């Protein structure tokens, strides 16, 4: 394979060399435990606190509101269970959406089995939540609203600011999974009006296995990992010092490059989307046409199955993902696409192309050259030869 084009940056990103460089001293030389009182420990503590300051400033938070975790999944679990368990006296009602990441949906399912009431708000055909529905769903038993900042499959950016106004007025906590947006579009926790916000380092060229949960001062919650007194008793466990330093370095790079990179990527994304829609009959955009992540191009190429396209593209050196049933290990296509009202037979033909720092215009043009004949070949092999040509 001569060419390797990675278009799955929403799944994970390669670490930037500067990030690795920043992390290196904390494995062997400065290996101290930040909880130790001697010099070696204090040095490590200093690195963790510097990282905390930088990350807090990046989202308009106070450093004491930053809790380091092992990543997005832990942050989401901690937010949802931590709020639910600490506010049982107030109520047992949680509001979320059907298009959340499994790291939000599964904790909700877990709580539902234990008697909590979960409301799943509807989304429109673009995957957008209507803030008016949030307002209607809130009862005096509601303890938490959890709505993602942007969807990981289709890239739609949710109207969090408006939702935040409602939850503040009603005195209900608002959590957002910002794993796809942190480091990619500007975030200010006060402008968004969120009380909790989940972050993962490996989605912004940082290391895997480290993340953050922002917890607004005064938020009533309990820890989900019990043990030592780290993180002000909010999250026990020895700090992942190198990981935390790496995340802060990735944030430093994002501070510098985020705005110009978002502009560059959104131009490439549009070139890709327009090209696909122009070259492939019955290619459909999924997600919102404008309110979407700068790097997310997701489509349904009706009449060709997602995994078959993915394998064919892989042979040509192109890596991407699909919401087809056959890529998920279950027999159901993407829960996100189904919740958006896309019929299963169309959802099976979904592809998600997510761009990143190494994506060039040549890469985009290569995909536009390679993908249309693949779709044509698979459609020709289908017993439904005519189905894709028009509405079914």
């Amino acid at each position: 394979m001569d060419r390797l084009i990675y278009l799955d940056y929403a799944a994970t990103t390669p670490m930037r060399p500067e990030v690795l460089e920043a992390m290196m001293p904390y494995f062997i030389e400065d290996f101290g435990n930040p909880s130790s009182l001697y010099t070696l420990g204090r040095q490590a503590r200093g690195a963790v606190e510097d990282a905390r300051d930088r990350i807090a400033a990046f989202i308009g938070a106070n450093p004491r509101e930053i809790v380091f975790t092992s990543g997005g999944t832990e942050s989401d679990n901690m937010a949802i269970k931590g709020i639910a368990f600490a506010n049982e006296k107030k109520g047992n009602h949680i509001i979320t959406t059907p298009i959340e990441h499994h790291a939000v949906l599964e904790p909700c399912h877990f709580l539902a089995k234990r008697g909590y009431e979960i409301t799943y708000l509807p989304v429109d055909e673009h995957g957008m939540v209507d803030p008016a529905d949030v307002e209607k769903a809130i009862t005096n038993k509601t303890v938490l609203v959890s709505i993602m900042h942007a969807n990981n499959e289709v890239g739609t950016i949710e109207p969090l600011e408006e939702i935040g106004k409602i939850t503040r007025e009603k005195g209900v906590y608002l959590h957002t999974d910002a794993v796809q947006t942190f480091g990619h579009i500007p975030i200010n926790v006060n402008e968004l009006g969120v009380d909790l916000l989940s972050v993962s380092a490996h989605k912004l060229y940082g290391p895997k296995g480290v993340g953050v949960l922002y917890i607004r001062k005064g938020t009533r919650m309990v820890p989900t990992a019990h043990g030592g007194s780290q993180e002000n008793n909010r999250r026990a466990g020895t700090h992942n010092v190198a990981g935390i330093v790496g995340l802060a370095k990735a944030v430093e790079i994002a501070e510098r490059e985020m705005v110009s990179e978002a502009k560059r990527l959104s131009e490439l994304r549009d070139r890709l989307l327009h090209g696909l829609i122009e070259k492939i009959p019955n290619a459909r955009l999924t997600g919102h046409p404008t309110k979407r992540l700068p790097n997310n191009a997701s489509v349904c190429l009706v009449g060709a199955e997602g995994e078959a396209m993915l394998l064919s593209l892989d042979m040509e050196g192109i890596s991407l993902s699909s919401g087809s049933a056959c890529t998920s290990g279950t027999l159901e296509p993407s829960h996100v696409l189904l919740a958006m009202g896309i019929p299963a037979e169309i959802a099976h033909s979904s592809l998600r192309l997510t761009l990143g720092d190494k994506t060039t215009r040549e890469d985009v043009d290569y995909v536009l050259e390679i993908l249309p004949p693949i779709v044509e070949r698979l459609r020709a092999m289908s017993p439904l030869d005519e189905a894709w040509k028009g509405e079914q």
Partner: protein
Amino acid sequence: MYSEKVMEHFRNPRNVGEVKKPDGIGEVGNPVCGDMMRITIKVKDDKIKDIKFKTLGCGAAIATSSMITELAIGKPLKEAEKISRQDIADALDGLPAQKMHCSVLAADGLREAIADYRSKIKK
């Protein structure tokens, strides 16, 4: 995840298309499930003289369709209808557990085509 053999059949599927004036047609699966297959056969002297497939589905669905056409061609109907999902998977050097239903689809498709042929000659 897939064996080399599965990938080879996915890359170069055998017997794609439809036989002309088929003696039997087997259609299984549906687009809602994501997998759909049409097998057409030509029968002579109670043997499968020609067989072709058209499949909408994942890599395993295409590879199992391709493999069953290879396994079935030239075989007496009585043998062909006995081809099991395990036979197909074995011929492909195995399938991931969650893809075994694709080989079920291929085996069912062929049996349906043979049943269709038999119901037609009875008339």
